[in-house]
């Protein structure tokens, strides 16, 4: 009984932590972009203000019930994948639902939110939504290939499909996986640029081209749910990369330092780049990242 209670409280604490950290990272991103453009920028807690305002808006748009389910799918996928990523290597509070094949499960689960959102956006009937969805799915085909290649390389090299198993292996060998298989790390980082949908890969939400794409018909509370889900999902991706490649984190400060350092890669790469066209984005992922993923696979086979 007590253990179940602690598990549930721990899950709620995990969601709150992911939400807070993800929102603060979003605010930090806006601040960093503003400083690079020689502006003052909004305060770092601006995203919290935005999300509270969005939840307090009225929402009276109805296009069909799948449209109402779209943001729910997105937030469900974010929280489910959060439950399978180990937050800390020690301690009881941030426990999670581990099993021996959770990395494979995560690779599937991380796609589910975008697919649910695509369903919801499809029913709104807005042409911008349809274009945004087709762009997003094409881009997903682009970055999933190097990402899966690097994950498979790690799984074959270390003979485990469990994330906690990988953390233990890194602790035993006292070497991070970004050093024991550097090519897989490079491929995964380049795939991460596309996963975050920041410039130059923001072809899905391009406000000047397709009027924010899939979410163009979602206002008010739905936009707030999308923001919540996006910040939780950003935390999930960063924590997964830290767990798999950088040996996990034993306390929250270490986690924040490592994830923030990783987060700055797509942010800073995006600040100095304009937007790619759709076919440029896809060919980008199928050239160098896929090549590094292939080298990583060969490296893993002969390790």
């Amino acid at each position, binding site marked *: 009984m007590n253990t179940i209670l602690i598990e549930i409280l721990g899950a709620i604490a995990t969601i709150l932590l992911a939400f807070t950290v993800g929102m603060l990272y979003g605010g930090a991103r*806006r601040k960093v972009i*503003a400083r690079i*453009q*020689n*502006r*003052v*920028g*909004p*305060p770092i807690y*601006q995203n919290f*203000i*935005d999300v*509270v*305002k969005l939840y*307090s*808006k*009225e*929402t*009276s*748009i109805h296009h069909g019930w799948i449209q109402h389910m779209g943001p729910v799918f997105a937030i469900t996928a974010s929280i489910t994948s959060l439950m399978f990523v180990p937050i800390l290597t020690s301690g009881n509070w941030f426990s999670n639902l581990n099993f021996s094949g959770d990395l494979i499960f995560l690779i599937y689960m991380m796609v589910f939110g975008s697919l649910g959102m695509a369903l919801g956006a499809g029913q709104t009937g807005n042409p*911008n939504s349809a274009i945004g969805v087709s762009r997003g799915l094409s881009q997903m085909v682009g970055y999933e290939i190097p990402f899966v290649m690097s994950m498979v390389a790690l799984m074959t090299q270390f003979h485990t499909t469990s994330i906690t198993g990988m953390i233990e292996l890194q602790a035993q060998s006292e070497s991070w996986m970004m050093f024991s298989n550097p090519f897989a790390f490079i491929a995964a980082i380049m795939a991460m640029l596309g996963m975050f949908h920041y410039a130059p890969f923001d072809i899905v939400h391009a*406000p000047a081209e397709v*009027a*924010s794409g899939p*979410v*163009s*018909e*979602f*206002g*008010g509370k739905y*936009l707030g749910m999308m923001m919540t889900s996006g910040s939780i999902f950003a935390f999930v991706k960063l924590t997964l990369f830290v767990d798999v490649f950088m040996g996990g984190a034993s306390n929250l400060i270490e986690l924040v330092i490592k994830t923030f350092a990783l987060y700055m890669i797509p942010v800073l790469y995006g600040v100095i780049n304009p937007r790619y066209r759709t076919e440029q984005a896809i060919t980008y992922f199928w050239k160098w990242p896929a090549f590094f993923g292939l080298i990583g696979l060969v490296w893993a086979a002969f390790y």
Partner: protein
Amino acid sequence: MYNDKNAQTIVDYIKNFTRKNSLFMLAYGTGCGAIELPATLTSRYDAERLGVRGAATPRQADLLLITGYLSTKTLKRVIRVYEQMQDPKYVIGFGSCTINGGMYWDSYNTIKLLDKYIPVDVYINGCMPRPESVIEGFKELQRLIAAGKADGATKYKENLDWYRNNQKKVLKNWPLVEYNW
């Protein structure tokens, strides 16, 4: 103080605080005033530090910015955009043209006073207003929101017949949506 019916409750206070500090702006940029907006939003004047940022579609926007004159043809689209926005919503009339017609005061196909067709919360005068006055307009709107007085949307709902009559006077033979709130 406790019996004052006009006093804001703590929930209203929090709501108004977030609303005034997070204005998603949809610029209806058919007039010449749209050229002042890039200067307002970029490095030199930086409206984002006040929480003002651009929204891509009417569904996501809180604030409709009418930048300059409206011909009767564009008025049709403005009414449609305004009615697509979600409550609470605010309108800023930008430049002299929205107040009295400005340099188009004797034109046969522009509207002269925007407030007769959609409710305007704040006017910014000038031809064109400089970015400083645009930011002052945003701040005035924030003051109104904080005091709970930016209620153009409720006015529009309550006096819909009056607004519809005014709209139909200039938009002849044009179907406008009828509501039964």
